[in-house]
């Protein structure tokens, strides 16, 4: 089975992978049934990174319960760790732990220690002083490269020489594809993308040649500035430099990425920089709100995965007829709804995200009080209080809460992605903790879309609306799903019912 390896480099990489995970959970499909995310970020305590890793891990736990279950369309695509891919072929899975590649020698290390500056001979010291400022040399690597690609390009070389990269190369098979996510205006992504590209196209990893790797189909998204950070003289990150860094990097890509046909499909995205995040160099505090640009970037991965083999080919390490794409919306607006997306994007995400939203809504608002209906209690494997106390449900519940927070963060961000009429709940630190909705008319929650009504809906005692319609669909879905394990039945019933209510009342 062909796999799509997705390299997420830096904080933006992790955040785009988070959006991709949400899309896959909602049932957005691609031509790949297996996706292998590999996150490369030296900032091991990074808030965004750790949120993504937890999310991926929850996704896996849920998805593994649903393998080959035809009645469910949520969590359809398998997400694997590189270790799992290696294990399947009998290799040593210990070369990478989970979804994140750990860089050695960056914990509590300054950059000058990493390159062993003190032991360099005088000529190399002079060269180093030419390339790196004193601040660069004193920079603590534990929280990332803080917008310095010149540091990133040195440190990240470690990845391409690592056992993990070697294992990736050995397990890369014909038909597999690679996608690289990076931001162009920071440190880690800007440095990592061309470096990984170059090493893949060479085909040599630690002295071994990998033909499939050299001639692989590679896609990438290079995320241009879409946020700025507050001014902080203490911080090494200054968003005033984002544009000049972008220009410099684009100039470099023009020669070394697109100019030499290294890449088969390159996606560009960015936004007018109207939102400002708190200036955090890294660590647990670097938890930026989810942004529509990240969702659109995740859509680029799906788009790439769906490109027919006939349109993307590689010969002798060079892409034949590479494609370059940009993402756009139909109108310039501060609040994007489904109506502002182009038809292809609407077809890809609107129903899926809406179905998952309603699934989420029912679980949050109603499930516990509506367990006495046939969908829950008329079958051998019951959806009852006991099921709700078990790990599987708790994992789904955690995942769903993250989904709601993700929607809430995109809703309040600039540009706002507001497909649903929601209110955002926050804590004392102004972090989104959940969303609130008006439950009196749940099918009027999709912005820009009216609830579909038939004559029956206007007849008192005959009309079935709101959550009752959902329960009706759950009961009908339960009959179609029949008896199977509780976990499968739960997801199958909710997946079918969510699809049914969305089809009937909205799209």
């Amino acid at each position, binding site marked *: 089975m062909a796999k799509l390896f997705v390299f997420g480099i830096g904080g933006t990489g992790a955040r785009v992978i988070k959006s991709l995970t949400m899309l896959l959970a909602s049932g957005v499909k691609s031509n790949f049934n297996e996706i292998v995310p590999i996150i490369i970020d030296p900032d091991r305590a990074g808030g965004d990174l750790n949120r993504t890793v937890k999310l991926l891990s929850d996704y896996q736990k849920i998805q593994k319960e649903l393998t080959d279950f035809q009645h469910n369309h949520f969590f359809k695509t398998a997400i694997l760790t590189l270790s799992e891919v290696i294990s399947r072929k009998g290799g040593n899975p210990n070369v990478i732990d989970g979804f994140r590649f750990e860089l050695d020698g960056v914990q509590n290390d300054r950059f000058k220690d990493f390159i062993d500056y003190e032991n360099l001979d005088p000529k190399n010291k002079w060269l180093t002083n030419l390339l790196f400022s004193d601040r660069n040399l004193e920079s603590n690597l534990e929280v990332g490269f803080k917008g310095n690609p010149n540091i990133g390009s040195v440190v990240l070389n470690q990845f391409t020489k690592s056992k993990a990269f070697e294992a990736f190369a050995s397990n890369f098979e014909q038909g597999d594809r690679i996608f690289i996510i990076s931001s162009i205006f920071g440190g880690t992504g800007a440095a990592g993308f061309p470096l990984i590209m170059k090493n893949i196209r060479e085909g040599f990893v630690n002295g071994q040649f990998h033909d499939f790797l050299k001639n692989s189909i590679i896609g990438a998204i290079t995320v241009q500035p879409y946020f700025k950070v507050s001014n902080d003289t203490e911080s090494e990150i200054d968003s005033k430099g984002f544009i000049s860094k972008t220009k410099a990097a684009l100039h470099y890509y023009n020669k070394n990425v697109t100019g030499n046909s290294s890449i088969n499909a390159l996606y560009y995205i960015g936004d007018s920089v109207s939102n400002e995040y708190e200036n955090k160099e890294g660590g647990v505090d670097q938890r930026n709100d989810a942004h529509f640009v990240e969702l659109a970037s995740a859509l680029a991965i799906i788009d790439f995965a769906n490109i027919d083999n006939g349109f993307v080919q590689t010969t002798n390490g060079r892409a034949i007829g590479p494609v370059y794409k940009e993402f756009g919306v139909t109108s310039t607006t501060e609040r994007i709804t489904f109506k502002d997306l182009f038809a292809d994007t609407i077809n890809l995400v609107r129903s899926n995200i809406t179905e998952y939203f309603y699934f989420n809504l029912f679980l949050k608002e109603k499930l516990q009080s509506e367990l006495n*209906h*046939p969908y829950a*209690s*008329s079958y051998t494997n019951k959806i009852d209080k006991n099921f709700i106390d078990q790990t599987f449900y708790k994992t789904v519940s955690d995942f769903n809460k993250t989904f709601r927070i993700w929607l809430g963060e995109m809703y309040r961000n600039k540009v706002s992605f507001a497909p649903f009429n929601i209110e955002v709940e926050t804590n004392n630190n102004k972090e989104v903790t959940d969303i609130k909705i008006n439950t009196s008319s749940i099918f009027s929650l999709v912005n820009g879309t009216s609830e579909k009504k038939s004559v029956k809906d206007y007849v008192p005692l005959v009309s*079935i609306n709101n959550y*009752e319609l959902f329960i*009706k669909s759950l009961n009908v879905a339960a009959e179609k799903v029949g008896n199977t394990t509780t976990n499968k039945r739960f997801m199958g019933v909710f997946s079918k019912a969510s699809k049914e209510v969305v089809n009937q009342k909205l799209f």
Partner: protein
Amino acid sequence: MNEFFASIYEKFYYSEPGTFSDCIFDNAIYVPLGITAFILGIFFGMLFYFIINRPSFSKWYHWTLILLICFGINFLIGLFLPQTKVESLCGHFTYEYYMLGLANGAVATCVYFIFMVFFRWFSTHAKQTPIPH
């Protein structure tokens, strides 16, 4: 058929020999009563499990409401339907009509109950009513 229905009705109510119940039997009044109770018992069962059949009307008290309506209608049928014929053929009764009405309601209730066991399996929204599986 008269004997069949009589055997059921008279389990619920049988007056002194040679009086009300024998009049009902001798004039085959149990047959229309029984058939009506049977049909109405099934009808109300179908009404609850297949026609209304909706999540918000599937609690035990909704089921009981339909049962009481079924009982009430059959009580009224048992109370009034035989009166003209019985008065003209067997004389005047009062209390006995009420007892026949109650018996008729009880018969329809039994039919509603018996068919509940079958109907509920095929209902989408009231499988659990009135007793969860």
